[in-house]
């Protein structure tokens, strides 16, 4: 794969921390690859693992699920639920034959614009190395 190939990364971002962190990357003008599309959710606990599978079925190359740091959840314990759910979901994805590097669950606070940009950069690089998602993509 050439460096010019732009993977598609669907990012589920909680509106209190990560979405605001992504906004901060913007207001701080921290550039990152245009691979990521953010879907705003109230809490990372709103992210159903089936959303992730659907994204891969429809051709996404990577998925990021991101919320507040453990202990900082606006809803007190939502991100603990996320952590538990995705600790199970990730092995399940590998079981389906998906490379583990395509899914990441990260805690990014509203103050971590730099970190949001870095994670997008990292993921984009990792996924470029893996190439497009062909395994789960449905022939449409």
């Amino acid at each position, binding site marked *: 794969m050439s460096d010019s190939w732009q993977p598609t990364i*669907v990012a589920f971002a909680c509106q209190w921390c990560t979405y605001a962190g992504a906004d901060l990357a*913007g207001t701080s003008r921290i550039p990152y690859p245009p691979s990521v*599309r953010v879907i705003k*959710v109230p809490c990372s606990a*709103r992210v159903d693992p089936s959303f992730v599978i659907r*994204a891969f079925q*429809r*051709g996404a190359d990577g998925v990021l699920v991101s919320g507040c740091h453990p202990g900082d959840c*606006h809803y007190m314990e939502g991100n603990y639920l996320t952590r538990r759910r995705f600790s199970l979901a990730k092995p399940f994805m590998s079981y389906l034959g998906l490379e583990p590097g395509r899914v990441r669950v990260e805690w990014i606070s509203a103050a971590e614009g730099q970190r949001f940009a870095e994670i997008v950069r990292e993921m984009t690089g990792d996924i470029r190395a893996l190439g497009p998602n062909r395994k789960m993509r449905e022939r449409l």
Partner: protein
Amino acid sequence: MRKIGVFVCHCGLNIAGTVDVKRVAERCAEIPGVVHSEDYSYMCSDPGQNLIAEAIEEKDLEGIVVAACSPTMHEPTFRAAAEAAGLNPYQVQMANIREQCSWVHPDDEEEATRKAEGIVGAAVEKVRRDEPLVPHEIPITKKAMVVGGGITGMQAALDIADAGYPVILVEREATIGGRMAQLSETFPTLDCASCILTPKMAEVGRHPLIELMAYSEVEEVSGSVGNFRVRVRQKPTYVDWDACMGCMQCQQQCPSEVESEFERGLGTKKAIGVDFPQAIPNRPKIDPEHCAHLRGDFCWLCSRSCPVDAIDYEQEERIVEEEVGAIVLSTGYDMLPQEVLGEYGYGKYPDVIDSMAFERMKSSSGPTGGEIRRPSDGEIPKEVVFIQCAGSRDPDKGQSYCSKICCMYTAKHATLYHHSVPDGQAYIFYTDVRAGGKGYEEFVQRTVEEDNALYLRGRVSRVYPEGDKILVKGVDTLSDENVEIHADLVVLATAVTPRTDAREMARIFNVGTDEHGFLNEAHIKLRPVETTTPGVYVAGAVRGPRDISDAAAEASGAASKVAMLLSREEMETDPLIAEVDEGDCSGCLWCVAACPFDAIEEKYLTRRVGDREVSRRVVEVNVGVCQGCGACTVACRDGAMNLKGYKDEQILAEVESICLIAGSQQ
């Protein structure tokens, strides 16, 4: 198919400098259902908003997407504009093509434009599935509860009551007053604590809108903002307070004298009576642990001495249920048991006391009548060592934080000591003097310059008796010399800690705590007296160490929040909350376990099948409590639970749109 409008903002060159906004508007016009698509230089300006309003009215739009900045900036603006034009405000979506697109991809116009198309496309798919929503209106119980009757709780209760709303003030002890009632004078003005506290206590006692529930504790809270139901346990005082007139004959007659916690071990109290003479309510209680009668001995002295026959040895606790619209938590703080710092010998050597004991000693109504005397022999101490940070800034054995108030009260103690014993010397071991506050630094300077206290920059490592003195081994890091002082009295500036049962209380009121057990505010900077549970407020040292001035300010802050809430007849709640389809719900209750707010309750549906009734369990979302996090939606195995505004089909449509547009762009 719903008619959708798309409005792409240039934001001057902020967006248009990178994203080809015309192309985005053109592409969006091709999406099925999009009947209007245009771009404009500043959508948030009046002309921009007018464009939107006109399009809504002319084309009967049933949903609009504003592709501009982050929703945190202008979502309220565009929702209001849409509502004015007759569109439900919840059928407005923002597509964030500034913070999350043009500003972060400045060097690649083509990619930025493609990404913008994807972002707007997803928003179109989402808004197409947005239902018109109406905020719920729930009636409000116009009454508040304040838990904790120290200076913070009293101030909050008085402010709320003065605003015209009834208040129930719940206090765990038999009297209000809290920690401040134990203090002698207050910094930085040296006002006598009782002189400013007791009038306030009396005001609370006689305020027609304040109902005082002393010697009571909250057991359980249910309901939600506007309508809480609170179970309060009234502990038995063994005195009929309604009959009692407060003559305290009983206290005088009682033969059981025990160490008084209020006097910090320096004085005694009777097994029946009040902690201090100005107690409000001015009613005695029996301490069952020390009452001879209740311990089975032959003693009726209090009962016999009572002129109104108010002593009731058989009294039992009562549970009272109250309904209130808002709750203020102001239960204050505890103090670190100084025994954890074994090197200072607190508890072993009588002349090593803590700061609260010093307050009692200096208090004119205290055990020494306001004179500073060594506990061991009653002599007036001529060399007094104050040790600050006794357990504060000590993550190893004490508390990691700075207790904030000790620098000031220690300066106050040294000043008061100098006033009482002019030929005595006060030594203060400190780590850093933190005197940020109005008049505080000046007070500390006066303590040094006029009241002759010697500040020594360093800590004390060990304290032990030598002869009839106490040897204090410390250091002065400014001169780099170890210091030994043969002191007559050592005063430890005790770390402030959360109440030992703070976590239990946090659980009852569904409020978060920090790592130490102090209650968490909703936002440490901008929402300091709110909590993440609507209708529950926090003020004072329950949040962390603070002095009287700060506590009083927070109390008034919390009171104003309560008054704001109670001033409304009904309360609007955010409609973006969970919703259950009873037909699909199997009653498995997984959602109940997932909900962090206890907002989901089970209920039973009954219907007649033939001639018998069939009952089926389902769940119900309490609209006043649900905060709209969506954890339940994911937990639901039946697909019966959904989050309005973030329904499964909406998020899946966003996912599909993103992937589809990205795929077509490859």
